[in-house]
């Protein structure tokens, strides 16, 4: 873990700090996505019409924040690339206890007051106070797992870590620091609202850091629109709704930290093993899609000789994979049983990594490996089509994505 009291004076220290920032952004994003995917959609899930609309708005807001975290991750990779570092998409599996790995508990938990409270902590500005903590409910397993604050936070991770990173950028000699190729960065809109900024010099680096902090916590005089304020507002709305209807539960009965493996080397803490075979198969497929998207991003952010159009297809395809496979499969999982006992709850997207991400150093091999992964996803989704029609659609779309990539590679060969 980075000791943020120390100033960052060397390129290596700056790279380590940026690696940590990348893991945080990805970790936050995944936890936000997980919570969003657990939210109820249908009136037959014991919600009223008004609650259905409220939940939809919350889900939309969380997904919007998650997309911005994706952009933050992209910009951190640009910061790394600018100073000669490699893009960083590694992260440990869930769960992680605060102080073991990061200053926060990293848990995959369904949408609830407790979960929102953790999200508010992630994004908390230094000069703000936490709201009143939620009253632990009998259903909440979060309180059983980890203790909640009143332990003092040693540092405000987003702004303090990024300000240390800023210090490194501002104090290491500029002409020695920025050695990365300009073409080794992503620069486009990840969606209509989210643009990733390029980093060529100290000024750009400061702009990126300002943007990330501003997105996260806002400015003291203007918190509106920040992630912190979004979660705070949501927390208050949820608490109000629960005062009106104490048994209101906006999320499906998804377990904490669902897993397809009982043990992972990078966490000594238990998750919830997905005992139901069908659910576990879908969860493994989910993990495969997730790993494939990370490899695509790794390939996009590491300049290995890919042409502009090849980088373009990687960017497009990773986005398509996230929208058309990862999100639908995550939603399907939160409606599937964790075991054969209905009272045990539902499964969820595990976001597991079974090993270190390995991007081949040879460009042609990267494409071969990517093609093999897409073949596996297509086959996996086809096999599941009988159980849920959405898989047939996903399979069709992944095939089309694969075809688009192959078409691009063929055009490059012809040139």
């Amino acid at each position: 873990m980075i000791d943020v009291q120390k100033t960052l004076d060397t390129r290596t220290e700056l790279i380590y700090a940026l690696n940590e920032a990348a893991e945080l952004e990805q970790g936050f994003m995944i936890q936000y996505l997980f919570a969003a995917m657990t939210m109820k959609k249908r009136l037959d899930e014991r919600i009223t019409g008004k609650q259905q609309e409220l939940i939809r708005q919350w889900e939309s807001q969380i997904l919007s924040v998650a997309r911005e975290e994706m952009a933050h991750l992209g910009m951190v990779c640009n910061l790394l690339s600018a100073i000669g570092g490699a893009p960083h998409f590694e992260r440990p599996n869930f769960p992680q206890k605060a102080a073991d790995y990061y200053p926060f508990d990293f848990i995959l938990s369904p949408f609830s007051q407790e979960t929102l409270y953790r999200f508010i902590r992630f994004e908390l500005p230094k000069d703000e106070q936490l709201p009143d903590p939620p009253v632990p409910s009998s259903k909440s397993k979060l309180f059983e797992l980890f203790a909640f604050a009143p332990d003092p936070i040693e540092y405000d991770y987003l702004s303090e870590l990024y300000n240390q990173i800023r210090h490194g950028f501002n104090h290491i000699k500029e002409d020695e620091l920025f050695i990365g190729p300009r073409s080794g960065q992503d620069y486009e809109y990840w969606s209509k609202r989210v643009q990733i900024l390029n980093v060529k010099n100290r000024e750009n680096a400061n702009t990126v850091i300002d943007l990330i902090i501003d997105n996260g916590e806002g400015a003291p005089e203007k918190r509106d629109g920040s992630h912190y304020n979004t979660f705070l507002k949501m927390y208050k709305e949820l608490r109000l709704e629960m005062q009106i209807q104490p048994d209101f539960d906006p999320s499906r009965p998804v377990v904490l930290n669902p897993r397809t493996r009982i043990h992972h080397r990078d966490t000594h803490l238990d998750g919830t093993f997905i005992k139901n075979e069908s659910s576990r198969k879908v969860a493994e497929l989910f993990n495969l899609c997730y790993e494939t998207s990370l490899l695509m991003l790794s390939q996009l952010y590491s300049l290995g000789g890919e042409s502009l159009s090849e980088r373009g297809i990687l960017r497009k395809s990773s986005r398509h994979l996230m929208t058309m496979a990862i999100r639908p499969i995550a939603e399907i999982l939160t409606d599937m049983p964790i075991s054969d006992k209905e009272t045990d709850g539902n499964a969820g997207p595990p976001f597991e990594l079974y090993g270190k991400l390995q991007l081949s150093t040879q460009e042609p091999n990267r494409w071969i490996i990517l093609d093999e992964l897409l073949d596996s996803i297509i086959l996996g989704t086809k096999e599941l089509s009988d159980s849920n029609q959405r898989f047939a659609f996903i399979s069709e779309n992944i095939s089309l994505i694969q075809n688009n990539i192959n078409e691009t590679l063929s055009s490059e060969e012809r040139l």
Partner: protein
Amino acid sequence: MTLLIKFAGWFQCRLPTAPDPTDEPRGVSGYAHALPNEPDFDRIIRLQPKLAIQRSYCQPIGVYVKTIWIDGTIKEDHPLLGGEVDFLENPKFEGRNNIVVEDDGYEAIFPLHIQIKKNNCLIRRKFKDNNIFPSSENGYNFKDFNQLKASGLHINPGIVSESTGIFDLSNVWKKRKEHIEKDLQTAANEIEMAALNSRINFLTRNLKSKNGLYNRFAYRMLYMISLTGSIIFQYPEKYFIGKPSINPESNEYEDWSLEFWCGGWDADSLSGYIEGYLGIPMSSDNETILKLNRDINEKIKEPLKRRF
């Protein structure tokens, strides 16, 4: 001889919008949402009110024949006038979040199978027989699919206003919102209230903004398609004018031209306007007409009691 049919009207398509995935059932992050009292989205393009989900105070769904020309002469009393126009086989706008098209506004309508019917008149034609969506089955052949694509988004406020009769959608929305707010006072149950509130919030939010979704009303997507698939062409004998032309070389029916635009999108009703023309090359079959005339003449000569 050419039979030219003009059609127009409102269609509905209940579909999720970006950044939601194509098969998102109820809409989350995009602007389109299924209301609490509505079923999941099905993305089907509906030109007729059957199975459409009509929201209150919105344009009624229905596309009908407006004008008929035969060889350039308008036929005021043609039996097909007012006929229902429909797309069969549950077509959808296929863009798949831009996996199969280059950008918004190029979505193909797939499959394409037009039908026009009124009383005993029935005209149908498919774009192509055996038209398969690009997949590994057909070697990802996009040649046919690309012919069903639109040509991008065009901003044509004048044409859209004149055709729809709506010159300012924001005004229409203001009035609609007033009606819905009144209905809220007498909503029958909690679900209906939630649905009405959702619409009121949507309209309020958009009316407040200069960039509100009412601006999309002026956009059109243009389609120009040659229909070459199997046909049904049924006309009662008394209206007989000929039959669809057959190309003597190929012995296949001549291509029919189908040109239309979809636009005038109303993001509250999830409906848009379609206007277009179906051109059918016809051959006047002189032998058949002569035989028909002979038959009619014979019937006129028969005593009344035997005819009835």
